[in-house]
C-alpha cells in the first residue's frame, strides 16, 4: 500500500493516533496505580480505558442552557484533525510518510497553532463560567509556549538545511539532536505538554475549575475530547521522536519499530511527568515562559546554528 494514497494515509495516521492514545491511557492508569498503591495490575490497566470509554458512550451527552452547539461539536473534531495533520508530516520509517513536505515543521506549527482555536472554542461554546475560564486560560498558556515550540524546531532545522521533517531525521544520522542540541528536547517537551494541556500544564481542564473546559461535557462528547487531546499528545511525541531522537534511524530493528520505541519513551516521560509534577500557577508560568523559555530557545537556535556552521 502506498502511504500517500488516500486509504493508506488514513489507515497509517489513524492507526498511529489510536494506538498511541490507547498506550497513553494504559500508561496513565498503570502509573497512577503505581504511584497510589505501589503496585500495578497490568490486566486492569489494559482494560480500564476500554471500559471507561464504553461507559461514556452509553452516557447521555449533556447540554447547557444556550450553548454554541455547532462550535462545541466542532472543537474536539478540530483538535483531533490537527493532531492528524501533525502526525502526517512525520516519516515513520524509511519512505513511510504521508506528507513529508518540504515545509514540514511549518505545517506542524500551523496545525498546532489551531489547537488554540479548538480549546478556546471548547471552553467558550458551553456558555458556562468554568469552561469559559478554562478556555481563556489556555490562550494565555498557548501564547506562552508557542514561541519556544517553533524556535526549537527551527533550531533542529538548521543542520538539516531544510524544514522537512524527513530531512531533519536524516541530518541526525551521525548524532541525534538530543545530544547535539541539549536544550531542544526539554523545551520541546514543556511546550508539548502545554499543547496537549497535559499534566503540570493542564490549566485549561484542571480540578480547580471542576474540570475546566470539560466541566459541562459528558458522555460521548467527553470521549471525543479526551481522545482528541491524547491524539495531540501522541502527535507531540511522534514529532519529538523524529526531530530529537533520530526518528526511524537505529541499528538492527526496522525503522518503524525504532520510531515506535522512541515515541513510547517520550509518551512514558510525559505521562510520568503528569503524575509527578504539580500543576503550574499560570500567571507565574507566563512570566517564566517569556523571560526564561523564549530566551533559552533563542540561545538554542544560536548555539545550534554555530555548531552547524
Amino acid at each position: 500500500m502506498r502511504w500517500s494514497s488516500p486509504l493508506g494515509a488514513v489507515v497509517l495516521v489513524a492507526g498511529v493516533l489510536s494506538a498511541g492514545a490507547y498506550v497513553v491511557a494504559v500508561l496513565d492508569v498503570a502509573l497512577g496505580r503505581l504511584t497510589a498503591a505501589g503496585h500495578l495490575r497490568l490486566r486492569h490497566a489494559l482494560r480500564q480505558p476500554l471500559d471507561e470509554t464504553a461507559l461514556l458512550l452509553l452516557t447521555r451527552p449533556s447540554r447547557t442552557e444556550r450553548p454554541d452547539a455547532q462550535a462545541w461539536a466542532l472543537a474536539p473534531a478540530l483538535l483531533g484533525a490537527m493532531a492528524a495533520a501533525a502526525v502526517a508530516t512525520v516519516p515513520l520509517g524509511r519512505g513511510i510518510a504521508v506528507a513529508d513536505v518540504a515545509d514540514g515543521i511549518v505545517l506542524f506549527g500551523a496545525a498546532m497553532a489551531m489547537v488554540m482555536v479548538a480549546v478556546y472554542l471548547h471552553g467558550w461554546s458551553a456558555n458556562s463560567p468554568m469552561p469559559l475560564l478554562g478556555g481563556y486560560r489556555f490562550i494565555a498558556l498557548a501564547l506562552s509556549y508557542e514561541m519556544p515550540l517553533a524556535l526549537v524546531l527551527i533550531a533542529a532545522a538548521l543542520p538539516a538545511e531544510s524544514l522537512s521533517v524527513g530531512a531533519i531525521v536524516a541530518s541526525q544520522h551521525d548524532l541525534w539532536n538530543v545530544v547535539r542540541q541539549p536544550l531542544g528536547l526539554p523545551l520541546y517537551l514543556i511546550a508539548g505538554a502545554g499543547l496537549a494541556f497535559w499534566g503540570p500544564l493542564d490549566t485549561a481542564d484542571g480540578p480547580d475549575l471542576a474540570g475546566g473546559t470539560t466541566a459541562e461535557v459528558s458522555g460521548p462528547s467527553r470521549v471525543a475530547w479526551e481522545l482528541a487531546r491524547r491524539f495531540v499528545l501522541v502527535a507531540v511525541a511522534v514529532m519529538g521522536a523524529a526531530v530529537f531522537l533520530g526518528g526511524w534511524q537505529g541499528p538492527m530493528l526496522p525503522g518503524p519499530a525504532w520510531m515506535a520505541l522512541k515515541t513510547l519513551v517520550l509518551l512514558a516521560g510525559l505521562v510520568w511527568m503528569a503524575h509527578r509534577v504539580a500543576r503550574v500557577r499560570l500567571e507565574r508560568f507566563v512570566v517564566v515562559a517569556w523571560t526564561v523559555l523564549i530566551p533559552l530557545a533563542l540561545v538554542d537556535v544560536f548555539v545550534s546554528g554555530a555548531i552547524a556552521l
Partner: protein
Amino acid sequence: MIRSGTVDIAFWMFSAGSVVAAWLVFRTDSMVRAAYWLLASFAGVGALMVLLNARFLGLVLVLMMAGEMTIMAVFMVMFMMNPAGLNPMTMVHQHRTAKIAGVFAFAGLALVGLVADFPDRPADARRDPTSDLGRELLGDSMLVFETAGVTLLATMIGAIAIASKRGRYGDAEQGSAPPALEEKPPEPAGMEH
C-alpha cells in the same frame, strides 16, 4: 503527482469556501464565530497559496492567523457589548456607503484583472520558494528585514505603553490628564510623586 483536474477542483472548492466563510463573518452575531469564520476564510486562502506552489506562505498564513484571529476574538469579546450575539444584531452598518464602496472596489479589482498585462515568467516548479525567500532576506532585502525588526520593536513598546496601565513606576495614568472624550473635571495632577 496529482492530476491537474484534482488541483482545479480543489482550487475552486477552496475559493468558494473562502468567499462563503468571508460572507459568514458578517452574517453571524457572535464575535467568536465572526473571528473564526474569518480564520476559515484565511485558511482557504492559505490552501490556495499552497496550490499555487507558494507552500511556505500558505502554511505560514494559517499558522499566524490561528493565533491572530484568536487574539482578535478575545479582544472583540472584551470590548463589544453582547459579544455572543444572544440578542440578534447586525454586523453591517452604513449600508449605502458600504454598497457603493463594495461595488467600486469589485469593479476596480475586476478591471485590473481583465485589463492588466500580467508578466508571463513561469518559475521553475522544482525550485524551493522557501530557500529563495531566505536568500532574499539575507541578500538584497536585508535592510528591509532589519527594518522590520526595529518596526516590530517599536510596535511592541508602543502596544505595551498604550495598553498596560501598570507601569514600572506605578500607575501609568497617575499625573496624566484623562482623554478628552467625556466631560470630566480634570484630576489634580502631581498630587503624589
